[in-house]
């Protein structure tokens, strides 16, 4: 007996589930990277008894490095999967409506997340080494990755508002 998931859910539901998984991974990645970026931009020496913002800045950034790499790769792979459907089901209607700038911002997202993927090996290495010579590079690589992640997250959200899979 052949099993097909489409006997139980519609095609649109299938792609919507994948998109939501992609979005949830992105939320986790965004949170981890934002914590880490803030911790290197505004480090605190003593978090005990501090307020929310100070505790937000006081995380141990190194503990996030591997999780960020894994989340970035997983989010990227999920995005690459749904990109197939996006190209025909979402992008073409957006182009037909003439939303060229909206589409352009998504194309830029695709470039930034790929460049970010390439940065990950160095990012991981910089966080796994505590040598002072790596401090500046570690800080700015993290901040750039966080900026790319924020851009990607917001543009993905906007695109889904313009035309989702459902």
């Amino acid at each position: 007996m052949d099993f097909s998931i489409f006997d139980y859910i519609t095609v649109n539901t299938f792609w919507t589930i994948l998109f939501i998984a992609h979005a949830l991974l992105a939320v986790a990645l965004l949170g981890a990277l934002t914590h880490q970026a803030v911790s290197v931009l505004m480090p605190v020496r003593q978090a005990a008894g501090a307020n929310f913002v100070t505790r937000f800045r006081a995380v141990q950034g190194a503990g996030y490095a591997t999780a960020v790499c894994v989340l970035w790769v997983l989010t990227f792979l999920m995005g690459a999967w749904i990109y197939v459907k996006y190209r025909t089901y979402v992008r073409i209607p957006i182009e037909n409506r003439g939303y060229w700038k909206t589409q352009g911002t998504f194309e830029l997202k695709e470039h930034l997340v790929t460049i970010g993927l390439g940065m990950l090996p160095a990012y991981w290495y910089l966080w796994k080494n505590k040598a002072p010579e790596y401090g500046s590079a570690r800080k700015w690589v993290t901040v750039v990755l966080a900026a790319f992640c924020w851009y990607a997250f917001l543009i993905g959200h906007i695109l889904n508002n313009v035309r989702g899979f459902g």
Partner: protein
Amino acid sequence: MSTETVTSPGTVVSAPARSAVAASARVRTFVVVFSITATVVYVLCDLLGWPLFTYHPATGRLEWGYALPRRNEGPVMYWYGWVLTTAIVSTVVAALATFVPENVTRRIPLFTLWLLPVLAVPIMFWSLMNFWTK
């Protein structure tokens, strides 16, 4: 095991002790060269059109290299091809770099790891000019 160190005035970084992998000079060379090369190669792939393959999402067809859309087969996608080109070239270049003496590879400025991606943003923005001016 965690340790804490002051890397620059006012910057406290807590990090695990170095693992054997993270302490290796060859690994350092590989990851630094890989990340720098990946940014450069991906930008070149986009600007010069170097996908390793072209994907036709409506039909599932794959073609080697750069291919134009086929009649009645919908759009084409180059991005997957660019990613694969970038991954292969960066891996080969980084692997070759590990055979270069460490005193040479140590001279690669680490600020290029973040500066090149930042410089890539306006270039990629410019490459999308068709979208901004339609």
